[in-house]
């Protein structure tokens, strides 16, 4: 991966609005009454506020229902360099302040269950004629039938609805996970020209900190004021698979990701964590061209046994609606370039 071009693309994607993800005339239709209205959207350029009904596994191994509030700020910028076979397209997806909170679910103390990511970025490079140059003499150029990219996340904090319990006494302790950072480099054999479509097979690093409350039997499950900390570092051992799909009109979005994370812990042993998450979204309506979508979320996270605690399986599904302003740059104020949608 050309690191310099990646950095350039990421920076430009934030600073510049002159991307070829701008709304153009294909995104609009004129009604019989003369109203010009939007019929295609960029689902990754949107501020979302959502409310959902949720079912989740509780500490007592039952299903608990609750209401979730969701939010995210998604910004997609697409840039192209060169023409013909030399053409390279970058799709940069930024996500800010993404997550959900279940205000009525308090697993411990007064803290509600939530999952929030401060910032995430996904960069996808599509080369019309991808090749790998081998540093032989003379250099050899070998066809490389994959798109490439990287996927990173910084500052993820999670309070699960189900708390870890003691292996022997099954008593819960307070728990919070701080995902300091993760980064995954991936290849994409799908090589789709459409935005938001990829099969990402990746390997990466991640660093998580698990905060546990007082020891079962002697501590209280209500307190995490003096936490016991377990550090988890995956030094390039996290394998992941991500499937992304967007319809041409941007009304349908599907995103599924699974990750298996063998990692070294501060307990000086190897452990294996895993997670899976899926998201399906359908834009149903738009009010003054601002979309309203229904979504279905599902997530599973396996936190391996540590300290005196058993393995924790955190499972939840939610179904809701989200709305918020579309952030696609207005074609009237940006340089118009060719784009897929």
């Amino acid at each position, binding site marked *: 991966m050309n690191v310099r071009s990646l950095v350039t693309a990421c920076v430009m994607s934030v600073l510049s609005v002159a991307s070829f993800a701008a709304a153009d005339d294909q995104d609009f239709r004129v*009604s019989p009454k003369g109203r010009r*209205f*939007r*019929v295609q959207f960029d689902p990754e350029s949107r501020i979302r506020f959502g409310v959902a009904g949720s079912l989740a596994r509780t500490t007592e191994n039952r299903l608990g229902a609750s209401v979730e509030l969701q939010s995210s700020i998604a910004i997609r910028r697409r840039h192209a360099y060169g023409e013909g076979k030399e053409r390279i397209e970058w799709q940069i997806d930024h996500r800010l302040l993404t997550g959900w909170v279940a205000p009525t679910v308090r697993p411990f103390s007064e803290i509600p269950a939530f999952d929030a990511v401060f910032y995430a970025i996904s960069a996808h490079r599509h080369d019309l004629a991808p090749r790998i140059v081998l540093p032989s003499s003379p250099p050899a150029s070998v066809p490389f039938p994959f798109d490439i990219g990287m996927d990173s996340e910084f500052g993820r904090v999670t309070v699960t609805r189900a708390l870890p319990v003691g292996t022997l006494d099954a008593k819960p302790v307070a728990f919070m996970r701080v995902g300091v950072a993760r980064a995954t480099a991936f290849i994409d054999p799908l090589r789709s020209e459409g935005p938001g479509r990829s099969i990402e097979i990746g390997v990466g690093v991640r660093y998580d900190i698990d905060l546990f409350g007082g020891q079962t039997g002697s501590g209280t499950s209500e307190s995490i004021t003096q936490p016991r900390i377990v550090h988890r570092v995956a030094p390039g051992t996290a394998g992941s698979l991500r499937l992304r799909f967007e319809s041409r009109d941007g009304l349908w979005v599907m995103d599924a990701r699974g990750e298996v994370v063998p990692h070294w812990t501060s307990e000086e042993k190897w452990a294996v964590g895993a997670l899976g998450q899926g998201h399906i979204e359908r834009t*149903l309506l738009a009010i003054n061209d601002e979309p309203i979508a229904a979504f279905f979320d599902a997530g599973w996270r396996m936190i391996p046994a540590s300290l005196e605690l058993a393995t924790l399986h955190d499972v939840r599904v939610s179904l809701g609606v989200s709305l918020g302003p579309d952030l696609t740059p207005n074609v009237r104020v940006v340089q118009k370039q060719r784009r897929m949608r």
Partner: protein
Amino acid sequence: MPRSSLKLPLWTFVFATLGIGSSARAADEPVKPVLSYDRPVTCYDLADGKSVRVQCDRDSKGKTVCLAAPNQMAGTGDPLERVLPCEHRMNDDYRTLQKSAQIVPAIAEAPSGYARGENGRAFQVKFDLLKRFYIGAGWAPTLQSSHGFEIPPGFPLGRGHAELGIVLSVLSPRGRSRHDMRLLEGEASFADLEVHGTLFTYDYQHEHRRPAFWISTFFGEPEVHPLLPRVGWGFRILSVTDRQPSYRDALDMEFGEVHIAYNPWQSTDMYSHFRLEFGADVGAHWSDRQSIKRENGNYYLGPTFAAKSRITLGKGGLHYLFTNLDIRRSTVVSGEYSGTTVNRLSGSLAYEGVLVAINDQPISLRLATEGRTQNDFARDVRAVELRFLAGLRMSFGAPPRVFEPMPDFEDP
């Protein structure tokens, strides 16, 4: 132009009876025609020092017919008020006109909302009671539940009331909207001195034709639909109820209320409407008026609902029907009764009709029945009050009701 004549004696009463279009006269007396306010008028200054106002037209046979009306008040000879400016001509011109045309005695023109008597006095016959300052007094017999409540001597019949208020309703044709304001409205009963008043109320409604929203649907072929809800809004500031009959020692003060409103029906100029309001209010209740302090109030907040109608009968603005249903569910969030929730329901049905006008200031009859019920804050009892009202209101500054045409579309 002044609404009332300053040159007439103060005690000159002009009575405008209901539906009046001309001055009172005997039934068999021929009715004089009236000059049109929409056509130019020529004034002829006669040799005797008087003048006449003339409008001419040709009849079906091609003959010129002229309506001629005195240009001064009968008796006093004062100039007419509320007439069009006219082109003045001399006595000789009038003689020439008399020879060539048929002169028909008539009454001078009057602007819309006014009629003119044979004595030349223009008097208001249409009233906009949504723009006025009013004072009123009446008889207010009040029935009250005796279950758990003390009823003083004199109830239910020995009860009167007085009221005042400022009402202002402004139609904005360019915005195709109406702004209703009520300022310093209050009423007091006697001799128990129940006081109810509101500092300021504002309501907004509209009859927009530009869609407020466009809803796009993406089921099958994308379509877009205009959405034009008759949704308005409003608020109320500082509403006080003191010595309510069922709680003679209590003071209730609603600091503020804000609501959104939906008008399922309204007339084209929004003068009449049926309105539903959904909102919330915040206030305080003191059970003992002798010790009203900030720290011993029961502060409440809760949702509010109101269904109101305002209907004017006919186009003269002489008859009005008002209905009102208010529901408030207040929960005390701070104070002695913290956590207590009380339901308050009140309703009224009122008729107001203009009876007479004094110097164009209408006096109206108001008949109303009002009901009110609410839970007690402390006890498990419910107060019920039913009041009947028959009274008179004197209104000041009520202009003629004007039917202002509105543009096809509001300004963007």
